[in-house]
């Protein structure tokens, strides 16, 4: 009897065990090596790598950019999702595909294209240059790149929720007397809340880890425009593997927390949907 339940339990865990075995060399061990390298010199050394001015700046800069990116994309993404989901116009499908493209385009290309538009030789750059405005290689440039790159994540989270939200809720609100804004504020927004939070966290997380586009547009200046991933890259190139891994470990932990929250909120909205 006891042996039977034991066997059952073991066989129940087999698929998970197999998954872990497959994922071990692909994902888990590389991740583990980040922490191993970060902590190789012991905790005090790990901490000492983190409290340098460069690291603190890079982390702060990354977090600020991530916050602002998440904030802007929450508004922008919600608006785009609303327009794409609730209005009808020719080319709507195509626009929706185009707006999701940054996911599929290598981020380096995104960075280059921004550079070619806003840089000194680009269309906007040539207009703005004489005015003394040069968004590339400044925080504004980094922000532009991050908004561009993470936009589809917000859109992709909000649009399906809006698509599923029956128009009769909105219509009911209208007949009851609610203005467009009130209908959004009291009816649509509460339904979107879970999606908004998930989308904002997803955007935040992607912005925090963004590298390809940032490296093109930031100029990678320490204490000016160096984000945490750029710092990590520079340190790796310079052979300071422990320093790089210490910061990488911090990013990994933050991302783990963020994605746990995303899963939690995504799960909660799903439960609500089902109860409905």
């Amino acid at each position, binding site marked *: 009897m006891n042996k039977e339940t034991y066997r059952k339990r073991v066989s129940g865990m087999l698929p998970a065990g197999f998954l872990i075995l497959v994922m071990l060399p692909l994902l888990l061990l590389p991740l583990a090596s980040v922490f191993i390298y970060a902590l190789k010199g012991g905790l005090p050394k790990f901490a000492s790598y983190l409290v340098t001015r460069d690291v603190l700046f890079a982390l702060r800069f990354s977090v600020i950019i991530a916050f602002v990116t998440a904030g802007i994309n929450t508004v922008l993404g919600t608006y785009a999702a609303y327009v794409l989901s609730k209005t009808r116009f020719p080319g709507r499908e195509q626009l929706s595909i185009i707006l999701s493209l940054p996911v599929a385009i290598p981020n380096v290309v995104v960075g280059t294209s921004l550079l070619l538009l806003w840089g000194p030789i680009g269309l906007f750059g040539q207009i703005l240059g004489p005015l003394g405005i040069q968004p590339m290689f400044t925080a504004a440039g980094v922000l532009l790149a991050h908004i561009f790159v993470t936009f589809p994540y917000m859109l992709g989270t909000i649009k399906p929720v809006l698509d599923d939200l029956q128009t009769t809720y909105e219509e009911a609100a*209208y*007949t*009851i007397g609610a203005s467009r804004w009130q209908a959004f504020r*009291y009816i649509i927004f509460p339904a979107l809340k879970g999606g908004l939070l998930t989308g904002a966290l997803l955007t935040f997380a992607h912005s925090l880890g963004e590298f390809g586009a940032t490296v093109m547009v930031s100029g990678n200046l320490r204490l000016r425009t160096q984000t945490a991933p750029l710092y990590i890259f520079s340190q790796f190139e310079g052979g300071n593997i422990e320093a790089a891994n210490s910061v990488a470990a911090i990013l990994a932990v933050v991302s783990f927390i963020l994605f746990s929250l995303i899963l939690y909120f995504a799960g909660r909205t799903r439960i609500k949907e089902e*109860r*409905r």
Partner: protein
Amino acid sequence: MAMVIEQISKRYGELCVVDRASLDVSDGELVVLLGSSGSGKSTILRMIAGLAVPDEGRILLNGRDITRLPPQQRGMGFVFQNYSIFPHMTVAENIEFGLKIRNVPVSQRQARREYLLGLVDLYGMGPRYSSQLSGGQQQRVALARSLAYEPPVLLLDEPFGAIDAKTRIQLRQSLKKIVKEVGVTTMMVTHDQEEAFELADRVAIVNKGCIEQYGFPNDVYYSPSTQFTADFVGDINFFEGSVLDSSGECCEIELFEGIPVYRRGRYPFQQGQRVLYGVRPEQIRVSLLEPENYENGINGTIEKSMFLGDITRYSIRLADNRLLDVQVLNYLFIDGMVMPYELNEKVWLIWSQGSGIILADEAHPAFVSNL
């Protein structure tokens, strides 16, 4: 007139969904739009609510033209087929929503909410969410929510569509009671004729975007003005025929093989005009005896009988080789004394000269000559 709808039309591209529909509704009246799905009845309702704008025509509310007013300014009550109870609000918040939008003070809101919860028989359900309610309860919340701000007109779109058959019958009566108690002018849309007849003060038959007939339920049933109405409302057997004489107080019609039928009353038909003559199955009785001279009758052979519990349905082959269905109440058969009819038995189908419907035959309007 509380509300007048004048010749409104709505087209979606090439498709004409509503075609010059006109209706008038009196204060406190309950009008039912009856039609099959896709007939355009819901679109009429949506145009009244302001959720759709008519391409032509006008809608007047108490003499005021509201055709192009946005829904927010019409203040109509609208109960959606799926009820659309806001899922993140409690029942109480749902009901108070219209009052909150209108900045009604909290104390008044609460009083109104309690009154409405009582009215729809949902005492104590205020703190619940829609996910915790049955379909019937949701419907009543939707009703209370749309009555909260005292709308001039209450619009109900298939309010019983999502409710099981048994509950539906109970809810109909309570809906009618509530609406009449509040005294609100109401327009309801349904595809269920029984529901329509039970609730309606007046009923409008909607077909392909047109109002086929608008009147009291028994008028619509017994004096349908079109073949569609007659067919759509209840069962009916139609025969093609031509008028022999309609000059007097009685109209004489010749059916197939020269069988004459009579209909009392004055009819504006000319002699020889092609007409459709219809008689409802429940008006026909089956007999072994020939009809009296004040009755109409056709004979035929019983080809099929179907026992349905309280009634038996017979399919009877007539002389023109068509089948005609009649229903016989089973209480008429008495064990050992009056036996049910048997297959291949020759019987008479008999009905009163006071029943039957005569309509001009639109398919064969051509009048040839005196026979």
